[in-house]
């Protein structure tokens, strides 16, 4: 068993490492899955030999779970990937809570040291927040009707957080033989579940990449804590790896928005009062036909996709446009902002689904200093990430956020459904620029119109 665990541990770490390399990522995923399987079989053989009936039940449950997981993962459209990841994450968190409570109420696992007691409390705390937090995140991502963000939620969130802290500290100072540990654990779990809801409710759409990474990290930490409780090194290592991934991604996303984690969790841009007074913006609109001819006369074109592209399901039209332009020797790149979409890397997955070659997808930092080489930049369903105010207007609430310098290109065409503002509510000064035009309408329909026009040319 020790040997199997050793293999599994090495496999997990190596698998995760491979997942950071585009060429070997698929192998890495399979390696990680195989490692878990090896460790799982070893665990069952080591503990289950004497309880064969339980093993049958276990195998049945595993089969059902795998079956459900498989169906679910195959049914979901790529645009809905953030929802799916949230749901799976919620299940992991729920699992942690059930395990913790069952350990004390059902199994009578001895919690004889403060260390074990604290570990169990933390496992349930993180698991509980991850569970309800991910469920709320799922509902938000899925566009369900939820209570509108209200100040009362923030107050409730603070109260629950304070309760959790008090309960944890109380546990540390109370005498070990006090008999109400199970009650305390149950109370902490319940408050943690509530906290997950209050924490997540006020967080807005564009902050979802941060939130999802954070919730992922929480489940990882819960798993790690459970690993300490069950004394399973594979669980500890697996949990830590997940926690580290989640924390790193969370921080990267925060940096990409120039916002602190606390600011994101507070739910809104801090200085929302400092937005410029509404000036009449002088907007030049353009038709699909004009856009098509502009594209046809360009040499270098870039598309900046945002969440709006995902909503309009326009990724296949993007691919078709790229193919069309290739025939007339126009090179089309895609430039992706780190926080575009609703989870880290969301846009990359959508473009990959539409068969867009990896080589034509650029990260913001790769091309941002050479934006003037692009003759035309098409902004599809993105707003704040191309707002030049972030660079040159210290009064703007998004000042300091790294942006894609679309305004440096010779021509910019922004596809929009309406003049609604971006997530931050900041006035987008891109529209004031002489080289910027707006193509109103649904992104998918507009792209289709452009492609049809290009066919005629």
């Amino acid at each position, binding site marked *: *068993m*020790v040997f199997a665990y050793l293999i599994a541990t090495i496999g997990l*770490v190596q698998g*995760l490492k491979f997942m950071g390399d*585009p060429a070997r*990522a*698929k192998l890495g*995923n*399979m390696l990680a*899955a195989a490692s*878990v399987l090896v*460790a799982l079989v070893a665990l*069952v053989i*080591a*503990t*289950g*030999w004497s309880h064969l*009936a339980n093993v049958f039940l276990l195998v049945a*449950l595993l089969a*059902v*779970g795998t079956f459900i*997981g*498989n169906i679910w*993962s195959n049914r979901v459209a790529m645009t809905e*990937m953030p929802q799916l*990841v949230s749901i799976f*994450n919620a*299940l*992991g968190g729920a*699992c*942690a809570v059930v*395990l913790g409570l*069952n350990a004390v109420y*059902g199994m009578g696992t001895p919690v004889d*040291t403060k260390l074990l007691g604290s570990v169990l409390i933390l496992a349930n705390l993180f698991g509980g927040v991850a569970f309800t937090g991910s469920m709320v995140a799922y509902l938000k991502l899925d566009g369900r009707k939820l209570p509108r963000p209200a100040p009362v939620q923030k107050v409730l969130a603070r109260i629950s957080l304070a309760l959790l802290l008090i309960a944890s500290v109380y546990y540390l100072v109370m005498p070990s033989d006090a008999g109400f540990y199970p009650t305390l654990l149950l109370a902490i779990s319940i408050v943690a579940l509530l906290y997950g809801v209050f924490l997540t409710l006020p967080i807005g759409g564009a902050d979802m990449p941060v939130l999802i990474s954070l919730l992922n990290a929480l489940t*990882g930490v819960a*798993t790690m804590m459970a*690993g300490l409780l*069950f*004394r399973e*090194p*594979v*669980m*500890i290592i*697996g*949990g*830590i*790896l*997940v926690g*580290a*991934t989640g924390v790193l991604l969370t921080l990267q996303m925060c940096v990409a928005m120039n916002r602190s984690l606390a600011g994101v969790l507070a739910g809104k841009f801090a200085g929302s009062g400092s937005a410029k007074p509404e000036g009449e913006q002088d907007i030049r609109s353009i038709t699909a036909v004009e856009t098509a001819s502009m594209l046809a006369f360009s040499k270098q074109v870039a598309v900046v996709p945002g969440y709006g592209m995902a909503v309009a399901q326009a990724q296949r039209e993007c691919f078709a446009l790229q193919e069309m332009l290739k025939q007339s020797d126009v090179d089309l790149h895609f430039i992706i902002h780190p926080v575009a979409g609703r*989870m*880290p*890397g*969301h846009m*990359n*997955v959508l473009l*990959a689904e539409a068969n867009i*070659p990896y080589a034509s997808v650029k*990260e913001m930092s790769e091309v941002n200093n050479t934006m003037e080489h692009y003759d035309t930049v098409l902004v599809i369903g993105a707003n704040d990430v191309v707002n030049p105010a972030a660079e040159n207007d210290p009064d703007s609430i998004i000042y300091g956020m790294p942006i894609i310098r679309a305004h440096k290109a010779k021509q910019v065409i922004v596809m929009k459904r309406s003049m609604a503002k971006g997530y931050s509510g900041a006035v987008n000064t891109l529209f004031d620029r002489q080289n910027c035009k707006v193509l109103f309408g649904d992104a998918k329909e507009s792209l289709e119109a452009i492609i049809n026009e290009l066919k005629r040319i």
Partner: protein
Amino acid sequence: MDLSYSITPIDGIFVLALSLLLGFEVIKNIPAVLHTPLMSGSNAISGIIIFGGITQLLNTPLDHGWTLAAASLAVLLGAINLAGGFFVTHRMLSMFVVKKKTNKPSKP
């Protein structure tokens, strides 16, 4: 032969500290393209919490109905997380790989 083994909580904390450092090292430089698969993959790995459920399930006598039911629920939740996570990551990564193969010949 005794196949089982156990570590003390203190051993566990050593494992924790070392793997924490390792974890950050391993994932430090991941390109943005792979963020989503990395996330769903690591999400799947956190489904390893199922091991706790398995331990509970296998050590519960069959007549302890509620305990058994809770452990079964934990196993089921964990299994969906684990299997679903790996499947969906595989599906995503397949899109990346297939695309590369088909595009290389068509490039020139």
